[in-house]
């Protein structure tokens, strides 16, 4: 009996941590409401939907960031190509609600238009930084989620959806 109560309390603690962690991510602008929308599309028939889409985002972003590094390293910089890459990254980050990454892409595109290599390099660093930050945070979030599910709980996003 005591064991059961202990387990329920542990689960509660995990769920509270999850809620607090997510709330902070929203509050600090790392995520926007599009992220909650993803959970609306997750159900018993697609229980891994959010993780799948976010994983695609990670793959996409890493590829694009590499392409951008290489493009900026060229002797003759192709700004149209760079703009195309940034446009893609802006799109995918927007689609999963990675707000800070998306915003850094917006600045990036402005400097692309101005064809300013130095500023573009700075933007790339900024994008990289924001990407790594959100990657770490989302991975931590999914870890928490796993623990909750393992402890017999479930994530009901509707309750905390903004």
């Amino acid at each position, binding site marked *: 009996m005591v064991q059961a109560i202990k387990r329920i309390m542990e689960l509660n603690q995990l769920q509270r941590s999850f809620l607090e962690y997510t709330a902070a991510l929203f509050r600090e602008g790392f995520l926007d409401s*599009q992220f909650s929308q993803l959970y609306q599309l997750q159900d018993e028939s697609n229980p891994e939907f959010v993780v799948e889409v976010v994983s695609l985002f990670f793959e*996409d972003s890493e590829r694009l960031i590499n392409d951008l590094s290489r493009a900026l390293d060229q002797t003759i910089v192709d700004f149209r190509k760079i703009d195309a890459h940034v446009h893609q990254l802006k799109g995918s980050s927007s689609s999963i609600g990675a707000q800070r990454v998306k915003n850094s892409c917006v600045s990036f595109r402005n400097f692309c238009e101005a064809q300013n290599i130095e500023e573009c390099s700075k933007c790339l660093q900024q994008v990289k930084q924001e990407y790594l930050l959100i990657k770490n945070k989302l991975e931590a979030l999914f870890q928490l989620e796993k623990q909750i599910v393992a402890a017999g709980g479930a994530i009901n996003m509707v309750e905390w959806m903004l």
Partner: protein
Amino acid sequence: MGMTTADSQFHVLAVDDSLIDRKLIERLLKTSSYQVTTVDSGSKALEFLGLNENDRNTPNETSVSPEIHQEVEVNLVITDYCMPGMTGYDLLKKIKESSSLKNIPVVIMSSENIPSRISRCMEEGAEEFFLKPVRLSDVNKLKPHLMRTKCCKNIQNQENQENNQSPEIQLQTAQSNNNNKRKAVDEGISPDRTRPRYNGFTLVSN
């Protein structure tokens, strides 16, 4: 049921070069109980619709194409605007210029809110223009466009079936419903299934 407007019968073709966005739109549409096919380019979309990219509208073609389309009937096309090669706008144009496809409603999605782009698309015949990221509330706006085409389609079917004398659905006017029944009872026969009356109709399934 002879005739049903179940959502599972609606087939939507989604076009987007972004894998993430294709996954998203697919889930959005499936959640709304639509059948979904996704392709990553405008040319693949045209291929799926049974239209060769270089096709022009010839009189002969119109009689052939509809039969092919029966196999892969598409009730709505939703496409991204910005795509390499053929843009969503180009695709929209090709569909509206095709005598076999022009009645398929087309919806455009774009990450950029450019008024001139939006009006250009609407002028070309797009039903809706959604800003990305697309949400469930946007997808809910598709229903009326789909219902409209399905409705017209069923009238067409009914007229065809009447000619074949083997209708599966019966159309009756809301007002004359009672009259028909009374008449049938009086005459001691079951409601005439081969002579539907329809003006200001309701659809009745058996």
